[in-house]
């Protein structure tokens, strides 16, 4: 196990050390001490590393992650795991806006709440939020699954494409072209698997499913008011 202390090392030194593992993998387990809310911690990782961040992180923590499993023992700023490709990110605290934005794959678990635009433009990532999420979450979501145990803000799933959204709590309002859909057996099964992967002990039957009505996929003059 290797420890990098951000009270003495710079973020640049940290990321360079992690990127060196792309060339030759010599150390899988990393501890990042005293992150102190710094931005861009552990971005662009491309190896199956295990990274333990012992405190709060700023913007874009674990951005564009591939393969690595990252745990943040604190809160995170804007865009945690943005554009993640694979691997996992577990946030023990709360997340700010745009958590998991544009992510293509992997699993993002937030144990606390997530702010506005959680899962915006998501493209295949799975996101599980144990608390509440803010407004305009999954806006323009293209693919992947968003699971929320708590409540959602306004305009959930606005202009949604093919993301599957599962919510246990209350939905304040749905965005344009987002509708509640029937929870069929395949969805219960999909959700059960996701909850199990995220380490959540909940009954899938307690959730409701939301998805795209697909009315805005092609422009029609009668839908102009929805834009």
């Amino acid at each position, binding site marked *: 196990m290797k420890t990098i202390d951000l009270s003495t090392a710079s973020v640049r030194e940290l990321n360079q050390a992690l990127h060196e593992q792309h060339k030759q993998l010599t150390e899988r387990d990393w501890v990042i001490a005293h992150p102190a809310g710094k931005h861009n911690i552990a971005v662009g990782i491309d190896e199956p590393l295990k990274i333990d961040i012992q405190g709060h992180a700023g*913007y*874009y923590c674990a951005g*564009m992650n591939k393969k690595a499993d990252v745990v943040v023992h604190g809160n995170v700023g*804007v865009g945690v795991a943005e*554009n993640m*490709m694979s691997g996992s990110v577990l946030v023990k605290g709360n997340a700010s806006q745009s958590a998991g934005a544009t992510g*293509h794959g992997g699993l993002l678990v937030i144990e606390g709440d997530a702010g506005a635009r959680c899962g915006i433009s998501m*493209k295949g990532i799975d996101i599980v939020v144990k608390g509440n999420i803010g407004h305009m979450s999954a806006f*323009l979501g293209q693919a992947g699954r968003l699971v929320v145990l708590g409540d959602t803000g306004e305009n959930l799933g606005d202009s949604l494409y093919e993301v599957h959204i599962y919510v246990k709590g209350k939905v304040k309002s749905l965005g344009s072209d987002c509708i509640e859909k029937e929870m069929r057996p395949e969805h219960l099964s999909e959700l059960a698997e996701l909850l199990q992967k995220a380490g959540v002990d909940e009954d899938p039957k307690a959730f409701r499913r939301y998805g795209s009505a697909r009315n805005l996929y092609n422009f029609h003059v009668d839908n102009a008011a929805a834009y």
Partner: protein
Amino acid sequence: MSTHEPILRESATFDRLTIQEIQRAAETGIYDIRGGGTKRRVPHFDDLLLLGSSMSRYPLEGYREKCGTDVWLGTRFAKKPLHLKIPVTIAGMSFGSLSAQAKEALGRGATIAGTSTTTGDGGMTPEERGQSQTLVYQYLPSRYGMNPDDIRKADAIEVVLGQGAKPGGGGMLLGMKVTERVAGMRTLPIGVDQRSASRHPDWTGPDDLAIKIAELREITDWEKPIYVKIGATRTYYDVKLAVKAGADVIVLDGMQGGTAATQEVFIEHVGIPTLPAIPQAVQALQEMDMHRKVQLIVSGGVRTGADVAKAMALGADAVSIGTAALIALGDNHPNLDAELRKIGSAAGFYDDWHEGKDPAGITTQDPELSKRLDPVLAGRRLANYLSVLVLEAQTMARACGKSHLNNLDPDDLVALTVEAAAMARVPLAGTKWIPGQNGSGY
């Protein structure tokens, strides 16, 4: 009773084009969409002239004395700045809006000429990367196809905030061009009318952009230049903020810059022309002591070597071409006139690039049409055209006594109109008068 044909008076307000558009809107209920840039006459490089040498300045020999053309881009922070042989780059145009053959041809032509080409709103194709010696990877609000592997394969990253044809607007690709391959690269259902976001999903202002640029630098170990592309509007302020956020290069696109598909009303009524945008950008850079340290690439209506020389004389480090590059590949060629007339257009006028019916095989995803474009031949045509642009620009620079294109400066320029003089901030020809600035004319 008169035997003369009556003289019909056309309204200047409700002219035939306006009447046709009202009728079209009433019939369809949707705004008109097209490709390209503004078609209206705006003050442009044509309204400037270069002052050649005579007694007070002496020229360089046209065919004997060197006139350098190379340019470095990204020298501010990047460990690996780009060194291009010519200061004319190929602007960002997506696979999706263009065929794979067209993207390959752009790469081939740019590589022969020693310059860069640029991806677009749809990710990086192997054809494009394979044939482009120097490839700039666009980082757009949609983030279609965005992945760290392609970022690492790129030679520079261009964070796109906007484009001249539609500052404040997002990308658009209508369903007829969202084929299986295009949809797969963008993670979209096949055949949807794709309307991209106009703002980035994970940052909202210049302070956030600084952190975003730092992230991209961290991911690429500070190797690659980071460009910031803006559509010309409040250019002075936008350039200052982009520089403050950490840009290595500013790409400034005026309203003559083309688009693959946008509302006609947007193209014609939003943004400012290239001409007044350049001095604003240069002023901003100079005030920050960043002119020539943060490079300025200008696009929007560059067609000739004269345009290249004039843009550089106003302070650009390089220019970028999009529409002109497509024309060089074969877009709107007279040989296609009969086919273009069948789809309601004509050679020289075709702008329905969003419909995907381009008989040139350029702005289409139809496999039968796409394969009409020979990427090798089209790439050669582009290389020829780029060569002419540079030769023409060199001719003008030598006449002004300059041993390198980047030695051209505003003192080499005068304006033909009061409007151009005010916008370009160079004197009206034969005077010392720059409208809006101190000093008396004579």
